[in-house]
């Protein structure tokens, strides 16, 4: 199995890596870069636990090939945790008790973060729609939505 060298930005750092063509971005992040904050929940683009930002847009990293990321920018929860908007979101999640087992949390935060960047005053429906692709089994979602709403500056 041959590999090819790719060059991409991950969390602001340039990475040069040798990867097989069939490796997903998800597996690149977890297995080659030990960025294990991004989770594997289904590897089928359904659960959203693997959500990362690709050139600023949320994607299911299980449905992106590592080789497709040549020359592109990837941001994961580890890198985004330094961003003020993300920190505000994380604090709201913590204050609202919107985190239980924590497995959906990184993906959920990234989808919410991207939403707030493109729609800073997102309303209830917009938040639900933006998080539709992130499944949670523990919390029942409502606190997550409230946390995002509060971070969006709308009072409860």
């Amino acid at each position, binding site marked *: 199995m041959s590999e090819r060298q790719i060059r991409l930005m991950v969390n602001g750092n340039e990475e040069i890596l040798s990867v097989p063509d069939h490796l997903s971005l998800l597996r690149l992040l977890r297995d080659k870069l030990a960025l294990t904050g991004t989770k594997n929940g289904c590897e089928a683009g359904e659960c959203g636990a693997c959500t990362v930002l690709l050139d600023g847009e949320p994607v299911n990293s299980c*449905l992106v090939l590592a*080789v497709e990321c040549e020359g592109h920018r990837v941001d994961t929860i580890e890198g985004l945790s330094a961003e003020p908007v993300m920190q505000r979101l994380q604090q709201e999640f913590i204050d609202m008790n919107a985190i239980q087992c924590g497995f959906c949390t990184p993906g959920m935060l990234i989808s919410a973060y991207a*939403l707030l960047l493109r729609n800073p005053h997102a309303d209830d429906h917009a938040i639900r729609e933006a998080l539709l692709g992130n499944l949670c089994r523990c919390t029942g979602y409502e606190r997550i939505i409230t946390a995002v709403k509060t971070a969006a500056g709308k009072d409860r």
Partner: protein
Amino acid sequence: MLQPYPGYPEFEYVKPLSIEEAVGFLKDHPGQSRPYAGGTDCFMLLRDRRIHPKYLLDLKAISGLDQINFGNENGLSVGASVTLNQLCRCQALAEHYPVLAAAVREVGGYQLRSRATLIGNLCNASPCGDTIGACLVYGALMQIVGSSGKRSLALDCFFLGPGKTVLREDEIVSSLDLPLPPAGCAGAYKSIGRNKLGDLAIAAVTALGYPDAASPSGFSFRIALTAVAPTVIFAGHAQEILAEKGLTVESIENAAAEAGRVCQPIDDIRASAAYRRAMVAVLTRRALLSICDQLHISP
């Protein structure tokens, strides 16, 4: 038994820089290559080992394919690698083709739409593709490029069966063209899934009504049914009834019933044929009532 595979099988990733290069590669490696753009359908087929291409052709590097162009004369042109989220952000789409704009939003979740492409959704030829009906009622034209040249094909003629299109092995779709919609038209996309949102459609109706002097009632209609036949179908007779009588309580009921009659749904784990048939009638009625609303018609 579904064999559960982790990750993707081996393949070689190829990234052509031009359409000619892409088409040439397909010609030189018949039966071994799979072109793709977003990958959201293609990768799932790979993961399930339902396809085993030796080569995967990423079309995203081909310049021009990621463009949306709108002109007041020619309408909308959507390149092969335009993503669904790009379309969601497109003013011209929202303004001139609201039914397609609505259908696009119903596909999966936001993350999926960041990668999934409109052309990909169509080429996947799933009987229940959300965007198929809207593209059809807006009279979409597929611009196809192959090693023997280009051809334009009305979307009506594009589908052969579930997962099957008329594309030859060395052809790719470079863009989808939508002519300007008929003046004064109104439409709706009504679908039903197992959850409130985010599920694929188990039955769906896309309807468009527009003023048409040539039609007895002064209006013509296009009603596309998806998820209830091997490919998308028009509810031809329903369309005729409405063209003849216009939007009245009676004609809407008859049209809805006719739409229910013409579809050929199957029983599967998602829904029974009987339920799908019943829902086609309900959704047709609702789509037509929505059109009434938009056109300020009291049926």
